[in-house]
C-alpha cells in the first residue's frame, strides 16, 4: 500500500458547498425511480455518514456508567455538528420536553441549487417541492446516525418548504426519541 496522501479533511480542509450539493443531487437521481426503497437507501447511507461523523468529531461520548443527558446529543447536533457541516447553527430548536425536537434551518445548504423546470409556476413549485423532499432523506439519516452514535435512538423526519423555485428551502427536521410519545417504542 502506498503511503497515504496528505489528508485535506484532517487539516480542516474545505470544499465548495456546490460540490457537496451536486453529490447529493446525484444520489437522489440514482435512487429516484425506486420510490420508498430509494428513500430507505438514502436514509441508510446518511445514517452511516452520521455515525462516522460523530465518531470523528464528538467530544462527548456516552459510556455505560455515565449515560449522557438526553438533551446533550441534541444540542451537539444543533450547535457543533451544524457549525462543523454548515458553518452556522440550527436557526431554531423547539421541544415538547417529552422527547420530540424540531430543528429548523431557514435555508438548508443542500437545497440551494434545486432545479425546477416546468411549464407553469405551479408545476415548478410542485417539482421543487418533490425534489427538496427527496433530498431530505439523506440528511435525516445523517442526523439519526449522529444521534445513534451518541447513544440516542430516534426517528427523524423532515418537512421542506421551498423558498421559491430554485431558491433553496426551509427545512424542519423532527427528531422523535425512542420511547417518546408518538415516537418509536
Amino acid at each position, binding site marked *: 500500500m*502506498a503511503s497515504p496522501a496528505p489528508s485535506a*479533511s484532517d487539516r480542516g480542509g474545505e470544499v465548495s458547498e456546490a460540490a457537496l450539493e451536486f453529490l447529493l443531487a446525484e444520489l437522489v*437521481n440514482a435512487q429516484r425511480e425506486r420510490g420508498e426503497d430509494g428513500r430507505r437507501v438514502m436514509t441508510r447511507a446518511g445514517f*452511516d455518514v452520521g455515525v462516522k461523523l460523530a465518531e470523528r468529531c464528538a467530544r462527548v461520548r456516552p459510556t455505560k456508567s455515565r449515560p449522557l443527558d438526553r438533551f446533550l446529543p441534541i444540542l451537539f447536533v444543533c450547535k457543533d455538528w451544524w457549525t462543523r457541516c454548515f458553518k452556522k447553527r440550527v436557526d431554531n430548536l423547539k421541544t415538547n420536553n417529552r422527547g420530540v425536537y424540531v430543528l429548523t434551518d431557514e435555508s438548508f445548504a443542500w437545497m440551494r*441549487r434545486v432545479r425546477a423546470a416546468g411549464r407553469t409556476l405551479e408545476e415548478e413549485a410542485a417539482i421543487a417541492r418533490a425534489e427538496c423532499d427527496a433530498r431530505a432523506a*439523506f440528511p435525516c439519516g445523517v442526523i439519526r446516525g449522529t444521534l445513534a452514535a451518541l447513544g440516542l435512538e430516534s426517528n427523524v423526519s423532515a418537512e421542506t418548504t421551498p423558498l421559491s423555485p430554485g431558491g433553496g428551502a426551509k427545512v424542519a427536521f423532527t427528531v422523535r426519541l425512542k420511547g417518546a410519545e408518538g415516537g418509536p417504542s
Partner: protein
Amino acid sequence: AAWQATEKVNAELFTLTYGAIVRQVLADYEDCVPEANAKLDAMGRSIGGRLIEEFNAKNEQQRCVDFRDTCETIAGVALRMFLGVGGHCADWNADHTSCLVVMETNPLADFVELPERYRDLSYGQMLCGVIVGALEQVQTRATCEWEKDALRGGDGFAMRVTLVGQIDTPYPFDD
C-alpha cells in the same frame, strides 16, 4: 478569487458522503466493479454539465483560448474552487492535446482503503466524469482517466486529460 467567493463546507462531510455514494453504487450493481466504474463516471458527467454554470457564474475569466489554457484552468482554478485543492498540469505531449492534471491532495479519497476485491475500482471515477461532462458543455470532447491513483498503488493523484475534438453545435437559441 473564485475560492474566496465560494460558499464552503467541511471537507469531511463531503468525503464521507462521496464514500457513501460509492458504497451505494457498488451495492446497486452487486459489486460488479466495471459497472460501478461506469455508473460513477456517468454521475460525474451529469454533475459536470451543471457545474460549468456555477463555474462561469463565479469566474469572470475570458473564454479559454485553447486546450492548454482549458487544462490549466481546470487544474489551477476549478479544482481549487470546487474541491479546495491545488493542482497543476504536467507532462504535456508535443502538440498540446494531452496532459496530466496533478492534484496535491484528493478529498474524495481521504480515509479510504480499498479492499482487495475492489482492486479494479476506480474510486474517484466520478471526478473524471465531471471533467468530461463540463468540457462537453464548452464544445470540447475529451477523455479523462486516472493515471496515478494512490488508492491503487500510485504515488499521488493525477488524471490524464486528452483532447479528442471540438463539438460542432449550432448556437443554442432555445437553451
